């Protein structure tokens, strides 16, 4: 489901970067964290739990681990703690990640 961002857009910045979220290109401001970039783009869930319950970033400071996404094939990355980078391939995480994804 496409859900509009729950936030008013951030002010324009000089630098912009482009990353993909589940293959869809998204523009973001250089210097923002990945969680900020995602929340500016969509109000939809960024992961689902083992039981399929939808979740999105909750604390924005590295405590809650609700913002876990897959970045360039690496699972369980805390989106609120890493800067968004040009060309980053981000995927929502459905259910739990297994060991086979590790490393």
């Amino acid at each position: 489901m496409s859900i509009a961002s729950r936030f008013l857009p951030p002010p324009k910045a000089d630098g912009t970067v482009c990353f993909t979220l589940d293959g869809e290109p998204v523009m973001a401001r250089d210097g923002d964290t990945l969680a900020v970039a995602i929340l500016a783009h969509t109000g939809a869930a960024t992961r689902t739990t083992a039981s399929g319950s939808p979740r999105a970033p909750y604390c924005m400071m590295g405590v809650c681990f609700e913002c876990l996404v897959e970045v360039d094939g690496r699972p369980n990355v805390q989106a609120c703690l890493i800067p968004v980078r040009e060309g980053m391939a981000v995927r929502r995480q459905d259910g739990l990640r297994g060991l086979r994804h590790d490393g």
Partner: protein
Amino acid sequence: MTDEVDLIIVGAGPAGMAAARTMAKNGARVLLLDEQQRPGGQIYRGLDASPAGYLGRDYAAGAGLIASMEAPEITYEGNARVWRIEDGPRVLWSRDGETHVSAGRALLLAGGAQERPVPFPGWTLPGVMSAGAAQILMKSAGMLPRGAILAGSGPLLYLVALQLIHAGAPPVALVETQTKAMMARAAWHLPGALRCSPVLVKGLGLLRRIRAAGVTRFTGARDFCAEEGEGGDVTFRFTAKGRAQEITAPLLLTHHGVVPSTHMSRAAGVSHRWNETQQAYQPEVDALGRTNVAGVHIAGDAAGIAGAEAAAFAGELAALDILRLAGKLSDKVFEARAEPVRVVLKRARAVRPFLDAAYAPPAEVLAPVGETIVCRCEEVTAEEIRRSVAEGAQGPRQVKTATRAGMGPCQGRMCELAVRGIIAECGGTPDLPRTRSPIKPVSLGEMAALAQGQPPSD
């Protein structure tokens, strides 16, 4: 680990930065580690980029402290995830998949606070966040919540409301849990709090301006419940003035004060106690931040909630003590420098008993009931935890084994207080939950991948 610094500081908020500045001024070398890219902590997040005027003067006041981190004696390592603390002291931290081992003559833990998690039915929905999270988005990215509901209690709730009003994105409602009776009880602490009168005057000013802006306000609210509404909106239900209320908005932002971040200090072997007034665990520290672990000091909100102003003074005091212990300050010079800091620290802490009493979290947050999810990671409900206690689980460890509450990636950071509340209410033994390394989840690859020139850990 080629060179050992005089002090490793974990956490670059007011306490960590003030300590680093004091060390640097005295020619001591500091390694300052923080999970964020830039120093400032959550309170001064984004301040050195382009702070918006609507965030106010108190926020802008941190600029000097941040600028002082440029001193040549201070090495700042951002995006550093600390996951193990060893005797030495040695600190293991990783960044971009690489592990670093840092050694220092002393260690100061200044990990600050986290917001108290606010469990209620529906708090896991994507449209529900903590008020502090929204403020971080405002500070670090200039993003403003679209017509949000603010719910809970505490000074931060008022501050965020006013910042949103000034930014031209006022909240649609302010839903407060505290009652007139709580405010009346808190009045007992007013004489002490008046020593800190600028804070009180500021607080009253906040409320007046929120009222003047015409934000709908409820007090004595309870029975919080959120459901997904149309188009991803959140429908928030609660009881106030004896009547059922319902508000729908894109965002529901909740807050019930902050609690010390204790995972690091617990894993480091520091003794902790339960603070009944603040309903939180805190490390046992003396007036200078010393702990029972040799070489480890703790300062700021990580040692017990007292706010940003007090945190900076406590950081300075701890640094002076560390300099004295290292023989860099004589007892006489230490006393001369510490005394004025003690005076302002005492004044900064004076308002706390009033705030603790006025904005105490309600029972439904401290010990949730029914199908409310308590452990978000493992999706364990309040009822499941209550049942495990009824079936004989003693203390947090057995509740964890029985229900998986606290076993997810957040390692109990989001559920352990509510689990404790439930255990206490059900007559169980609410001991301090165990914390082990790695304090933050780390992959086996990361553990193995030591940065070049780094010796392996014992």
